[in-house]
């Protein structure tokens, strides 16, 4: 008899694990703080609850629930993602198939187009011009697909061209003001000038690499844009003639030039810039914090991003980060939009800076954080973002464009293969992925 009970328990346990897969319906009282009369809004974020970022989201949700008490109740769920983006996106993909998408979810900036084109997210309820103008232009552009606003981020990001003040002084090089950046020809001359200085230090004029992953397109696409090139057409559905244009071939040859003349190391060397063995470095905004805290001996400066020789003031510098969007599954787009606005608003932005040291996404948040006014480097990064920020290509096949861009850098710039041939190959591959959007 005992044995039978044991068997029964086993079977029940097995079934129990299956029952866990079912979608839950939440009623008032089920979750603490969810009262009758309130509209329930679920929200998924891509981070771990115990991190600073996770805590910042949690606090923002709590303050939303306070502010909208009696009207809305937002319930946050943390779904960690790994470096390559798995985990969180797997869960989204599974929910797209099986149902159960939340009302609001986070989307990485470059994926907004794919999610919108495939109907995973829906346009937000109408925002007033005033509400829109609170956000950095790059945030609005990143969230817009097919002329409709889908997503608003609480974070914005930037990449700086950092320089070592002591080395530039030694070489007698003056850094231009943000509105008159070095053109690529001028920059080559400067690298040439720095070469003997850096050889003496057993280093390189510039610390740069073309790493696998998102970093390459994020750091170096500005060279494409400021040279009059594009990676995709405006509707995001054509690459031939854009990705492999003459301008872009030129850009790849420019990078090849930097590699060939040994202005950069072919294989990445760790802490080249941080140890004072490189005059310049491209890196994310986090680098400022790293230098200040861990390498106080380095006198850090932020130079304006390099532009093409014929640049005439267009936006071109790196931007983009995760954003909040309303899922196509939500029946309450008004409520979801309120939540998106709140999560990405000024207060949440200041919090994300204070807790996680991520740049906020609204002008007001920047104005209210002291360091952007007092510190020249943070100030320079903010100015670069607000004046020249450019979103990454908006296309439903973004992942393929990003991978292809890095591959061309690797094979043409590093490996010395013919840039045009490599880019044509990429175009063919991207076209293969575009087919499902262009057939009809």
């Amino acid at each position, binding site marked *: 008899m005992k044995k039978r009970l044991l068997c029964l328990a086993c079977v029940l346990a*097995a079934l129990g694990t299956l029952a866990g897969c079912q979608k839950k319906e939440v009623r008032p009282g089920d979750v603490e703080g969810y009262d009758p009369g309130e509209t329930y809004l679920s929200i998924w974020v891509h981070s771990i609850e115990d991190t600073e970022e996770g805590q910042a989201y949690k606090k923002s949700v709590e303050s939303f629930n306070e502010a909208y008490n009696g009207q809305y109740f937002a319930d946050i769920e943390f779904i960690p993602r790994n470096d390559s983006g798995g985990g969180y996106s797997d869960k989204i993909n599974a929910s797209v198939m099986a149902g159960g998408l939340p009302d609001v979810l986070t989307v990485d900036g470059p994926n907004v187009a794919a999610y919108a084109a495939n109907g995973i997210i829906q346009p937000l309820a109408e925002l007033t011009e005033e509400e829109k103008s609170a956000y950095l232009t790059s945030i609005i552009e990143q969230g817009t697909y097919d002329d409709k606003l889908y997503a608003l981020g609480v974070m914005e990001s930037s990449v700086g061209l950092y320089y070592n003040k002591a080395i530039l002084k030694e070489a007698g090089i003056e850094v231009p003001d943000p509105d008159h950046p070095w053109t690529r020809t001028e920059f080559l001359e400067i690298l040439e000038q720095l070469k003997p200085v850096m050889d003496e230090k057993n280093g390189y004029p510039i610390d740069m690499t073309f790493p*696998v992953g998102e970093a390459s397109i994020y750091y170096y696409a500005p060279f494409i844009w400021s040279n009059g090139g594009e990676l995709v057409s405006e509707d995001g559905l054509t690459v031939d003639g854009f990705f492999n244009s003459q301008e872009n071939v030129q850009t790849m040859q420019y990078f090849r030039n930097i590699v060939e003349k040994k202005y950069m190391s072919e294989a*990445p060397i760790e802490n080249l810039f941080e140890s004072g063995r490189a005059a310049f470095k491209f890196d994310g905004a986090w680098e400022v914090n790293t230098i200040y805290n861990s390498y106080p001996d380095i006198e850090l400066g932020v130079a304006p991003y390099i532009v093409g020789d014929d640049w005439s003031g267009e936006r071109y510098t790196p931007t983009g980060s995760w954003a909040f969007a309303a899922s196509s599954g939500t029946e309450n787009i008004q409520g979801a939009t309120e939540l998106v606005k709140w999560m990405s608003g000024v207060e949440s932005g200041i919090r994300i800076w204070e807790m996680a040291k991520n740049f906020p996404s609204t002008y007001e948040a920047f104005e209210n954080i002291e360091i952007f006014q007092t510190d020249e480097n943070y100030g320079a990064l903010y100015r670069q973002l607000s004046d020249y920020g450019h979103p990454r290509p908006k296309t439903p096949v973004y992942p393929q464009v990003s991978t292809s861009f890095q591959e061309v850098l690797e094979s043409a710039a590093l490996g010395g293969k013919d840039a045009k041939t490599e880019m044509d190959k990429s175009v063919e591959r991207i076209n293969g992925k575009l087919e499902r959007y262009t057939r009809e």
Partner: protein
Amino acid sequence: MKRKNSIMGMAFFGPALVLLTLFLFLPMVLTFGFSFTDYFALNPELTHFVGLENYLNIFKDELFVKSFLNTVKFVLIIVPLQCGGALLLAMAINRAAHCKKYFKVAFFIPVVMSLAVVSTLWMQIYSPEGILNTLLGQIGIQTQPFIHSADQALPSIAIMSVWQGMGYQMIIFLGGLQNINPALYEAAEMDHATSWKKFKDITLPELKPLCVFVFITVTIGAFRMLVQPMVMTGGGPDHSTYTIVYDIYETGTVNWEMGLASTMAIVFTIFVVVLTIIQNILTKDKEGKHVNKKAKKN
């Protein structure tokens, strides 16, 4: 009684069967089904049946063919090195007079460590200013790019994998060695057999069944190479370390093309199964011949 027993059996077996069906068999069947469709993870509603189109397309896909060849290269480097290395280590430890336990543990530790950790560690070792290049510099060899060059990346990763995985097979061989009847060696010594002869005529034949097992598991393991290139090179430079499993992963989860990824997975599975069957037949045949020869001699 019999019936009661079978009910009990089912009750114990049932939960496992349910879970296996759900998380293993069903996904396998689904993958097979998806491989004939253009299933797109972001928009499952638009899925069409496309017949054999995927199967034709992947063989036209330069990248898939390249990743396939890369994987074969990995297998060709890893299998002999890892099997041979494990056997050598096992024999060395078997003979060691002191610190047997220490060496056993030392060689086994990499197996226990997470592949991601080991890979990160070796990125440091292989870096332009890492230990290996510093050592090479001492003996007058120029700095090598290792994982940063299209020519050296694949062998570099393969050697790291051999180092990482060898300990496991070593333990298996060690068990086998200790099971060999010492009387065989004593008899050989009386006949004044050389060490090489003892190895060739006693150790190897006695270990044969283990060798077959190790050979097949190492081969399958090498075919599934993913984490090392993913962490160390991202499949580069210039796709030189891009493997099939990596391609399946990228196609399915990064580019959301589950249908195509399923096709790749099915083709890959068929290939590995066929190869394993061939390996089995080949090794069995030899064993048969071996016995026959012995019988004839007698």
